């Protein structure tokens, strides 16, 4: 079997195994339960009263102050208020949750020595890429579940399902995955460097904060380099909130590029380290 084919096959097997971890193991079911609780709260206090929320003065002021009137207008262009609110909160919250959910891609296996069993049967690249793909599959399935719940609510409120709603659902799903790609890849890097998930999360938060702080300080003295801030993971989120529909994909290249670079770093880190 050629190496690229073997790489793909192994990545697929690892990704499938991670998906099984979500649905068939106790830690996976705990993740599902935590997601359910968070989204139940969001449903109860944001998505169910979406129409009222969007019309409320506090929410309008918040959106206007962040994105101006254009942002508010774009948010109201989504086919239903429920999907608009889902889009707004998901874009802001999911990257943060992703740091926590995907922190244990490699560190526990490194600590336990399980990677020694795996590296006798597959390349280190396929372990990194397969685990990353697995985490993306897990997040995709969680997003799909919550998005379907939102769609059902929207359809019930609107008195039926429309093509616009399905299209909006697809736009939201694709964009959320794109937003989560670099954060998941970032956790691939940190989980390859440390031996606990907790440390990986701490390191990721500190590194992102430090990067942002140092860049801001640098830009204060050299304002011509303001564009550099746009290369940090997640910076396109603010721009996405001011858009809707498939025009949001104009910001897809950045997270894809960031993910490729971060995954290359993670692969390099795992290849260079002793197991």
């Amino acid at each position, binding site marked *: 079997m050629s*190496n690229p084919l073997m790489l793909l096959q192994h990545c697929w097997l690892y990704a499938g195994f991670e998906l099984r971890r979500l649905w*068939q193991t106790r830690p996976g079911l705990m993740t599902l339960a935590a997601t359910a609780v968070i989204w139940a709260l969001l449903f109860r206090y944001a998505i169910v009263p979406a129409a009222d929320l969007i019309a409320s003065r506090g929410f309008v002021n918040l959106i206007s102050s962040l994105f101006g009137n254009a942002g508010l207008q774009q948010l109201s262009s989504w086919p239903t208020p429920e999907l608009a609110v889902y889009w707004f909160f998901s874009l802001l919250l999911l990257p943060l949750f992703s740091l926590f959910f995907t922190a244990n891609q490699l560190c526990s296996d490194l600590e336990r*020595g*399980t990677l*020694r*069993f795996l*590296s*006798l*049967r597959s390349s280190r690249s396929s372990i990194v890429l397969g685990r990353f793909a697995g985490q993306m599959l897990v997040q995709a399935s969680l997003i799909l579940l919550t998005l379907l719940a939102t769609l059902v609510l929207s359809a019930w409120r609107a008195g039926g399902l429309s093509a616009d709603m399905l299209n909006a659902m697809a736009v939201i799903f694709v964009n959320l995955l794109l937003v989560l790609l670099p954060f998941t890849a970032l956790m691939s890097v940190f989980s390859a460097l440390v031996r606990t998930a907790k440390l990986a999360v701490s390191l990721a938060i500190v590194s992102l904060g430090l990067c942002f702080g140092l860049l801001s300080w640098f830009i204060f003295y050299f304002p011509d380099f303001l564009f550099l801030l746009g290369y940090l993971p997640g910076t396109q989120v603010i721009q996405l909130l001011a858009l809707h529909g498939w025009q949001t994909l104009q910001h897809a290249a950045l997270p894809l590029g960031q993910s490729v670079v971060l995954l290359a770093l993670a692969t390099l880190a795992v290849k260079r380290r002793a197991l």
Partner: protein
Amino acid sequence: MSSLIRCDGLTKQFGSKTALQQVSFELQQGDTAALIGPNGAGKTTLFSILCGYLPATGGQAQLLGHRAGSSALFGRIGALPQDAQFDPGFSIGEQLQFYGRLQGLSSKAAVAETARVLTLVGLAAEAGHKAAALSHGMRKRAAIAQAFIGRPELVLLDEPTAGLDPANALAIRQLISQLSGQVSFLISSHNIFELEQLCNKVLYLDKGLLQASETAAVQSDAPHYLTLQLEQESSDSLLQAIKLLPGLISVQQPQKKQLVLRVQRDLADSFDISLLQCLAAHGWRYRSLTQGQTLEQKLFDIA
């Protein structure tokens, strides 16, 4: 005969500490080799380099004609790494099936292979249990089982019987002995007596240097040594009587009940009969009389 493992000038440094220094050796297909040495000798470092867990600082290591860690070796070598543990989220059976799938087996074949390897180590009934539900010995046997998935050509075992009770240790030794015709082994262990029973080649490492590379052929072709294990402690009268036997060059007493006799090669064939007659005539009971020195005696004489 094709080379199983070939190391040329293998060196590994951790900062200023040299763990392996210019280690060179070659093992042939069908060999069951022992890797022995004191703590800190570099056994696990050598083992880790051979498995591809650790890059060498210098030199080369090839297994079955491929660089250590190469993708060409996936499924062709199996290993029991020291201290490696299973994923606590899945049962042993699920994990072994997954390893089988990674080695290119179909789902059905992976299930059958898992059952086969677990049966080999006597854990067929434990396939559905997670590692945390198994005893230390069972976990070790499950880890040995994973090394045999897909019938690899070469199996590297790091301390395979450490932590096992005598019955299970014996079962593992029997398993290695039973498979040694079909599979080549490299076994790292502190248990010299175990290795003596299992291996036809011995690599003795100390302070990162390969101090000796012995083959069983040399050991079995050394009839000028006899090791006599007595029922009781030896006495001066026994030693005096043995010293009078024709062909004896020297006698050493490594332990109270053990004598190592060096005999002239041309008289070696008749010497053991003379010795047994001498013991019988004086009523001295013995437990065993073996040709050659024990591996321990050979290695520590050499060392």
